[in-house]
């Protein structure tokens, strides 16, 4: 008896929907084992991770706040991945966006600049993220350089550049030598949706981005081009679609969205520019994109789920002294299972009995 993977005649839409759920289930089983090995009560740990954050308004708002950058970045990444362009450097584009937007905030600090400051910051951040993403895209198109490597390496460039700025030229003179800019002025801050709460305008922008992506991919010829170029490059060329143009376009859009997410994070929940503004949003968004099946609505749900693990991880650390790194382990295992379960969309398991033999002594 053998267990074999057998190709399906047509992709299974049912499995496409439930495959992420299977992946989440398997991840939870693995985590239970891991918690047990760590000597923690698995049920309590799971409760701290997944249930506790859903029980109070503060945590719920915090989930939306964390999901905002994840969803925005993941939507951009999904466009790249659909077009077979592998942007791994959203983290860097996020940081560069944050830096570019902060430049306006720092320069207008303490002046009586008007309400134009925040919109200009957003535009500048998006433009900077897009330009930064164009570096690997152009290297790919012009010289055939692997965009996976170049985009990833540029993350560290952006990270160190930000570090230099907040330790050097942009450091808050009254900040006791901490590597951070001064708190942004109110005109350079993303407004809150609920007075005294955490939820801010960025979440609304993220929802608009999701809606725009739904329309782009589902209804427009550009979205069709992106999907064909990724799914069947030669057919796309036959259709008259230029894959190089789409690499440039999808990289630019995903860079812009990552940059926008960066400035919203800095001008919103953080309030100033400092190192460590991102707990790895740009990388976690890769998981969000795949967990959401590269589908905008899926990404919205997946972004909320991953945000839950961030918040849950913090709570588990406080309540049960579970190391915060376990959250990253969790996310890594989740990505692993998501990719593994995806093979079930095109294949199915089958038990095979080779060389059927007449059972002896039967009948």
């Amino acid at each position: 008896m053998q267990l074999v993977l057998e190709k399906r005649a047509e992709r299974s839409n049912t499995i496409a929907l439930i495959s992420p759920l299977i992946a989440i289930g398997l991840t939870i089983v693995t985590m239970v084992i891991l918690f047990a090995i760590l000597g923690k009560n698995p049920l309590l740990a799971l409760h701290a991770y997944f249930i506790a954050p859903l029980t109070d308004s503060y945590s719920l708002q915090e989930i939306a706040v964390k999901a905002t950058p994840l969803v925005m970045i993941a939507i951009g990444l999904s466009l790249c991945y659909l077009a077979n362009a592998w942007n791994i450097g959203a983290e860097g584009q996020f940081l560069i966006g944050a830096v570019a937007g902060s430049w306006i905030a720092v320069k207008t600090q303490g002046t009586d600049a008007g309400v134009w400051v925040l919109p200009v910051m957003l535009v500048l951040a998006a433009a900077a993220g897009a330009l930064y993403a164009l570096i690997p895209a152009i290297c790919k198109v012009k010289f055939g350089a692997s965009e996976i490597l170049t985009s990833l390496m540029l993350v560290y460039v952006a990270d160190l550049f930000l570090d230099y700025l907040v330790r050097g030229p942009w450091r808050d003179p009254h900040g006791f030598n901490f590597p951070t800019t001064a708190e942004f002025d109110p005109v350079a801050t993303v407004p809150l949706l609920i007075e005294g709460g955490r939820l801010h305008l960025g979440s609304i922008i993220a929802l608009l981005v999701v809606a725009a992506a739904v329309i782009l991919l589902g209804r427009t010829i550009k979205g069709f081009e992106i999907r064909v170029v990724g799914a069947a490059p030669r057919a796309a060329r036959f259709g008259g679609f230029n894959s190089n143009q789409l690499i440039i376009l999808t990289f630019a859009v995903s860079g812009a969205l990552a940059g926008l997410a960066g400035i919203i994070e800095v001008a919103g929940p953080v309030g100033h520019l400092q190192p460590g503004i991102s707990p790895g949003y740009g990388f976690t968004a890769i998981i969000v994109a795949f967990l959401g099946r590269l589908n905008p609505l899926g990404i919205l749900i997946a972004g909320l789920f991953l945000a839950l693990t961030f918040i849950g991880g913090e709570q588990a650390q406080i309540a049960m002294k579970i190391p915060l790194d376990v959250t990253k382990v969790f996310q890594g295992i989740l990505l692993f299972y998501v990719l593994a379960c995806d093979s079930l969309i095109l294949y199915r398991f089958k038990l095979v009995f080779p060389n059927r033999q007449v059972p002896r002594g039967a009948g």
Partner: protein
Amino acid sequence: MQAHQRMLDSTTNGLHSGESPLLRTIGLTKRYGDFLANDAIDIDIWPTEIHALLGENGAGKSTLVKAIYGLIQPSAGQICWQGQPIVLSGPSEARSRGIGMVFQHFSLFDNLTVAENVALGLDGKESFKDMSARLEQVSKTYGLSLDPKREVWQLSVGERQRIEIVRALMQDPQFLILDEPTAVLTPQEADQLFVVLERLKAEGRAILYISHKLEEVKRLCDTATILRGGKKVETCNPRLETAASLARMMVGGEIKEVKAAAGRQTTVPRLVVNDLSLAPGEAHGVRLEHISFELKGGEILGIAGVAGNGQDELFAALSGERLSKDPGTIVIEGLAAGHLSITQRRKLGAAFVPEERLGHGTAPRMKLSENALLTGHAASGMVHHGFIDTAATLKTVDRATETFDVRKAKRDPEAASLSGGNLQKFIVGREILRNPAVLVVSQPTWGVDAGAAAVIRQALLDLATAGAAVLVTSQDLDELAEIADRIAVMFHGHLSAPLATSEATREKLGLLMGGSTLEPKEAAHAVGA
């Protein structure tokens, strides 16, 4: 039936009596999911026999020989070799037992020499020098001339096939399987191959010869086993059958005759190619050399030639997948188009059907409606202000389904779920429904069942009758003879002057396909035709 068959074999060859067959399959079955690729096939192969395996694409020929060669394990049934049941662990075991195979698609490394390629394919432990000496000896013995030191990319397709055959013969097989060996050969090269095969047979070896060319089988083979839909239909002596009766057994019914409308009028030139030369896009590609022809409305021009002589490059240049620097080299509907993209050429009224159905003509994992959009987005009213009109794309699917009898499980399935013939009908239909002024088709019926092939050829004829200019590239000379008005031959990136189909005999085309030129007088005459 079986007994009768045995008698028939014995009487024709007079050698089988009393012996057991060299190879016998009993109830050989191969199941892929719910699909029975081979359904309880019994076949006997005797020494000193050329045994034809006939059947349409998808009849199960490849599955059967893969099982015999150890590439796949049968789901049920048995293979007996020299009277003993065997289970083959893989091709190397098959080879060591004396079963050799020459595949339709060669597995050769372009950048290695002939001798290096042969060495890579052998399991033995002999030194490279000994092997090279043996290679030369084997190729000499069988008249398969090969220079062991030449690199494969410099060789013609016929020479490449010789490497594969010599490689198989160096293992001294008692049983040799050949998968569609003449598909890539000129008629003259095929004749040379038949001499080699007759000689192998005279040495007492058995040959299993896969083909769908019936005249060839009648001429060469002693026995023919016909498969249809995974089942064995019949084993017979092909010399006692007619091509028509063999075709009926393969297809399981009569094939509709393709009819050309009488008195087709040719009109203005709709596709003109002027001295088109183009460097190859990839290493070892073919350079197009000074290609010129003129194609009028109402006319079908066939381009014959052995695969790999620049047909793919010509298709890419005509379609605009590759651009030409000089706009005037390609003229569509009177407009210089050499520099225009494929989308712009479609807007001028051109339509294209590439050879590869899945992955080139269609995106395999996308729905038919999306594949209708793939080529229809430019000029078929499927896109308004950047937004897709889904209803319009579905309408194209429905019209193609209705007009060209596309059989599918649901209204809008994925392209990959259709059979080859039905997908090809959809692709040809998708283009014809756009009422193109110029249609460029590559291998329109390659790997397509006979019924679908007839529908497609008829559609091409009808399109020409309606006034379009049609360019058909095909390796199937019979197909070109059936539908083309004129036939030109591609060789090493050159295109011969077209011959009128009535004057394009197999001999003349074969010479051109092999790179010879016709007598000047004859060629001049042909141009005037």
